[in-house]
């Protein structure tokens, strides 16, 4: 009973960073830019959020600053892949290593390591919060409740607005979009910055709202899981949200099992999230539904007037 209540109650805290980061990646990749830098941008968001809180003392300011910081750092990535047309896989990996160094350096020099912050108070959604078993799922901080709203807006913008449709056109067939007068690089730049801001928010959620402190490299591979999640969800935001919940469930379950003394091999438990990621990837590859879900021009740099 305690196990289930507490497990379900802790799931959103794990799921939200995956969900936000995956959504950010989807927005970027819908424009045809392969983004592997989520791990690095989450670190930027994490350190910027804590730094802003310790400087200004406002959680809202901290979250906004985290989004801004990740957006600004992503300009570097945009410069590499859009202007210089460097290989997008390499650029993404380099961005991660760069951010790992940058955030460790900044956070350490500023003395932000292990400085506790208060986070946001949990809000109970009455009467849902009184339900048996699942009640604690509805006692979360404000940002958790905002996640479905952010997803709704993103899906609506991608599918129902002109800029959203153009962004997807740029990702499917940049030559055609260009011929139709759509500024390809402009849309890709916007997609990178907006997506990165969301990934930055995911990082800040981990440091400012969930862990409530910062240490170097604290995202510990969660950005990579988000990358896998996007492939698993086949670039569909709602599937990504479901996948994030699934991963959140698994991560939240691990300590619960140990704390309630259930005998299971420790090493198996540590391996579980990665094994499941791997399994899901294989399943997706094997399922091979019509391959229209991946943006057509994903990973290809756009060179005007050149046939591909």
């Amino acid at each position, binding site marked *: 009973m*305690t*196990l289930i*209540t*507490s497990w379900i109650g*802790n799931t959103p*805290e*794990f799921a939200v960073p995956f969900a936000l980061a995956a959504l950010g990646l989807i927005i970027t990749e819908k424009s045809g830019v392969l983004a592997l830098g989520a791990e690095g941008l989450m670190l930027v968001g994490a350190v910027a959020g804590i730094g802003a809180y310790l400087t200004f003392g406002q959680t809202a300011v901290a979250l906004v600053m985290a989004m801004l910081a990740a957006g600004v750092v992503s300009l570097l990535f945009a410069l590499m892949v859009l202007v210089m047309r460097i290989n997008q896989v390499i650029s993404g990996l380099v961005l991660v290593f760069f951010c790992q160094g940058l955030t*460790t350096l900044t956070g*350490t020099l500023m*003395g932000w*390591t*292990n400085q*506790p912050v208060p986070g946001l108070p949990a809000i109970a959604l009455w009467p849902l919060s009184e339900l048996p078993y699942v009640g604690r799922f509805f006692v979360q901080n404000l940002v958790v409740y905002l996640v479905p709203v952010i997803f709704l807006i993103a899906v609506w913008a991608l599918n129902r607005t002109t800029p959203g449709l153009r962004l997807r056109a740029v990702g499917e067939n940049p030559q055609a979009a260009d011929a139709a007068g759509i500024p390809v690089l402009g849309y890709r730049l916007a997609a990178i910055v907006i997506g990165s801001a969301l990934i930055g928010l995911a990082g800040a959620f*981990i440091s400012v709202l*969930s*862990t*409530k*402190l910062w*240490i*170097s*490299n*604290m995202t*510990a591979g*969660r950005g990579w899981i988000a990358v896998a999640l996007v492939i698993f969800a086949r670039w569909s935001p709602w599937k990504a949200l479901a996948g994030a919940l699934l991963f959140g469930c698994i*991560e*939240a379950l*691990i*300590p*619960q*099992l*140990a*704390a*309630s*003394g*259930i*005998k*299971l*091999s*420790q*090493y198996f*438990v*540590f391996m579980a999230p990665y094994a499941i990621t791997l399994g899901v990837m294989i399943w997706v590859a094997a399922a091979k539904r019509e391959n229209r879900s991946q943006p057509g021009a994903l990973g290809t740099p756009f060179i005007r007037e050149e046939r591909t």
Partner: protein
Amino acid sequence: MKKMIFSACLALAGFFGLISTVNAEGLTLEGPPKIAMLYISPTNDGGWTQAFDEARQRLEKDLGIKIQYVESVPESASAIRPAVERFIKRGANIIIGTAFGYSDTFKALSEEYPNVAFLNGSGTTNGPNLLSFYGRTYESQYLCGMAAAAASKTGKLGFVAANPFGQVNWTINAYAMGAHEINPDATVTVVYTGAWNDPTKERSATKALIDQGADVIGQHVDTPTPQLVAQENGVYGTGHHRDFREFAPKATVCSSVWVWDRFLKTELEKIIAGNWVPNPNGALLSMQEGGTDIACCGPNISEEEEAKIMAARDKLLKGELQIYAGPLYDQDGNLRAAEGEVIPDPELWQMDWFVDGVITQQ
């Protein structure tokens, strides 16, 4: 990470130490002593390295020697070597490292610079001018276990640990044995996070333990997260590395702390005196020799219980108390140490069993 594989390697290190010919002459420094330290992480990391830096400051006062240092030297030869060689070029003749991952590079450097003394905290390699050292954390954590049981109302203790190997398991068993000194019915439920530095996992582990009824949370991980969560939830905790009352003054009742200067002062004096012959098996330090101690006692511990804890601490400081002395059985009833025996170090490093009252997976 840095302390991770230390366990497996110590037995090997000891083995090779015995074969290599010990220089009977010992090492005598040329010129006045000049000491330099290499830290694995920044001095303000709140834990491991900060404890070393605090020891350095006390050593400077006690020895009257300025000690240089460099921060954030990663565990790779390409980073360690230039840092050490720069110090040696500037005249340093005593080099102190602070990481498991420095072991091999320190071994190579100690052979290239036979006139320089090398020391390495949590290292695994030793030689005629190289000594690795680590603390018997189970002694200080035994005392923390006593404090935890004293602070607990329910007798249900939780423990957030990094990885299930010897040097973590020995703190867990000692924690439980210490707790049983105060409350024979106390249980210790362990959650391993699989990482030394993952505050997200530490937070959820601590929360899970509190949800399951634990009201004191011990820890053998690097960040103060378990103490912060304990404080948020109005329960107690015991810290590791340094006095975690700094982070959670209302929750932390006791902390296992590093006091490297107590060991390094005597060892450095020996080196400076000349004819230094380091222990070929490395130095695994008891509380008596320096290394670990406790910062005790925080809130919710009565004077009577505090006196008990301090009495046990005195015994450990005098070397009169052996934690892993027989008769000692594991929870499956196997005899692990017979009456009058103490478990030898190589077996301690391989500890994969638990005493009664420890609830764990695997």
